[in-house]
């Protein structure tokens, strides 16, 4: 009997370990987000700070194309200008417009995307409508600024870059409501 008991003790321990590891798989989700936040990877929803005086590189121009998309929510979303030209190191402000075409109040969150990928490293955003959620009443229209600077460190072979935003609906099932960040419910 004692051998059987010893067996079931080990089995219980291993089963508990299994359940803990199953939970650990899920615990990796907040852990991953925390790491991204602490190390500054993926901090799409926080403003950058300009630490030092940046010299404007007047020797070259960068064309910044502006793109806007919505996914799954009845909004019109567009930039007021399709592209701007700026020197690296120069502070630029552009405007976007959103309009709620439906007859209900909708919470939306914009997620940025950059092309080339490398731009993410050299783009400093001081202000953006994507830092918080946007709430639009029925038929409300809003114009929102984005203030950014492209660092002179951007390799010279990129003379055209694209900044793209996509609005997603923050519904009851996505549980994201603080506006600080998008929760992965």
């Amino acid at each position, binding site marked *: 009997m004692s*051998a059987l008991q*010893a*067996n079931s003790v*080990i*089995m219980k321990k*291993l*089963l508990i*370990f*299994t*359940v*803990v*590891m*199953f*939970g*650990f*798989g*899920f615990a*990796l*989700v907040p852990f*991953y987000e925390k790491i991204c936040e602490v*190390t500054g*990877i*993926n901090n799409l929803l926080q403003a950058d700070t300009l630490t030092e005086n940046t010299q404007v590189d007047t020797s070259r121009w960068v064309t910044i194309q502006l793109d806007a998309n919505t*996914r*799954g929510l009845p909004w019109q979303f567009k930039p007021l200008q399709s592209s701007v030209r700026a020197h690296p190191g120069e502070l630029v402000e552009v405007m976007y417009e959103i309009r709620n075409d439906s007859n209900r109040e909708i919470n939306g*969150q914009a*997620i940025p995307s950059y092309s080339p*990928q490398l731009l993410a490293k050299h783009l400093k955003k001081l202000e953006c409508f994507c830092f918080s959620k946007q709430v639009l009443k029925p038929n409300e229209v809003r114009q929102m600024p984005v203030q950014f600077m492209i660092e002179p460190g951007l390799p010279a072979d990129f003379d055209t870059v694209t900044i793209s935003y996509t609005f*997603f609906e923050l519904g009851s*099932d*996505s549980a*994201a409501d603080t506006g600080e960040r*998008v*929760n*992965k*419910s």
Partner: protein
Amino acid sequence: MAAVHDHDIAHAHDHHPTGMMRWLTTTNHKDIGSMYLWFSFVMFLTGGVMALTIRAELFMPGIQIVNPEFFNQLTTMHGLVMVFGAIMPAFVGFANWQIPMMIGAPDMAFARMNNWSFWLLIPAALLLIASFFVPGGAAAGGWTIYPPLSVQMGMGMDMAIFALHIMGAASIMGSINIITTILNMRAPGMTLMKMPLFVWTWLITAYLLVMAMPVLAGAITMLLTDRNFGTNFFNAAGGGDPVMFQHIFWFFGHPEVYIMILPAFGIVSEIIPTFARKPLFGYSSMVYATASIAILSCIVWAHHMFSAGMPVTGQLFFMYATMLIAIPTGVKVFNWTATMWRGSMTFETPMLFAIGFIFLFTIGGFSGVICAIVPIDIQVQDTYYVIAHFHYVLVSGALFSIFGGVYYWLPKWTGHMYDETLGKTHFWLSMFFFNLAFFVQHFLGLAGMPRRVPDYALQFADFNMISSIGAFGFGFSQLLFLYVVLKCIRGGEKAPAKPWEGAKTLEWTLPSPAPYHSFETPPVVR
């Protein structure tokens, strides 16, 4: 009772059902071990047919045989079937047959759970295969089931996820059984450091399984809820992060590749001393090397993702940690070589496969070190170089050790000697065609041929043709293996209790074939 078997008289307490019910209800470790091995062989042929279809399509540039959608399903399912259906169950089959006999235990610790962990595999395998026939076809995003593809695909993906859940549960149950058996049921006098190395490697593998499998279960559960219940763990459209899936997947996936190779190390560590007629060189260093490989395997996962976007510090950490694994692996290769050094070697089929394993696994290990180097990995990522690398460690590594192990223990399992000439022919055919199929893939990869494509640029044509010829040769050589095994089961020269004079472990003290119940009174190990 209508049918009374001989051993029913010998063991009056043992009246198991006959026919199909015997196999359905059996709790005998030898029956279950045989079922595992046959199951894995059937899955090996299934995955092999998929591989040959892939190679047939790649025989020439252009689309000839299958359409690209189906090609993607084939590459995905080939990987899943071979990893979860062929290699892993084969090693569990070895564990079932050998561990109780090698440690002097009468059976596995939880015999009924053992039966369950085998029979769970059948519905899982059926789910996987059946997913080819549902609308949208089988999962087609690669065996790593990365989002966003795996979030978007049809119900074949859900079936694959369920199949993985079931196989994972079966693996965990099997591992709990193996750990308990090894820790609690060793014969008196067999201390941990006197265990055969095969038992040691399986003990460590089983711990890796109970650690890694639940993490995979978690990852694919999140995938399932993303697909069906509106969560957004990985779904970028809802703020999720697809790269996070890669991290969680490979946190399971890298220990998984060692789950598939550590038991192979164990088998080879049994075969080499037997046919070199010397004790294993550096037994304790082998144990510690196995343990350090297992521990290191948990901190290197992101080397699969160097091009997915990672800070340089992270790349450097994972690069150095990965290269560190070459040290304990090198210890093992040196120990095997030192065991053979000045031994009285003979070259029966198991030994040929073991030596073939050392040669080819080392090539695969070296290309692994090359892939670990970040700047090179960024070049060869997702090319045929990676395909060549992991087939060198999984086919000429894991699979060759399985062949070697089968030849080594067949006399014990069946009571007959296998046909040595045919066995050696099987080895040389496998060796030749394996290298023909996979060595050229290194060149294809370095030249830039991407993996998972049904068509390719013309400059890759010659090497692909050679590779396809090799693959077909290798595939058909395995039918010879089937013939040798069947012939051995049906008859042949009677095997003595210890057919290999250099063998030292406990199972050779039993008669051949091993009696249905063995070591009911534990042997005493001194």
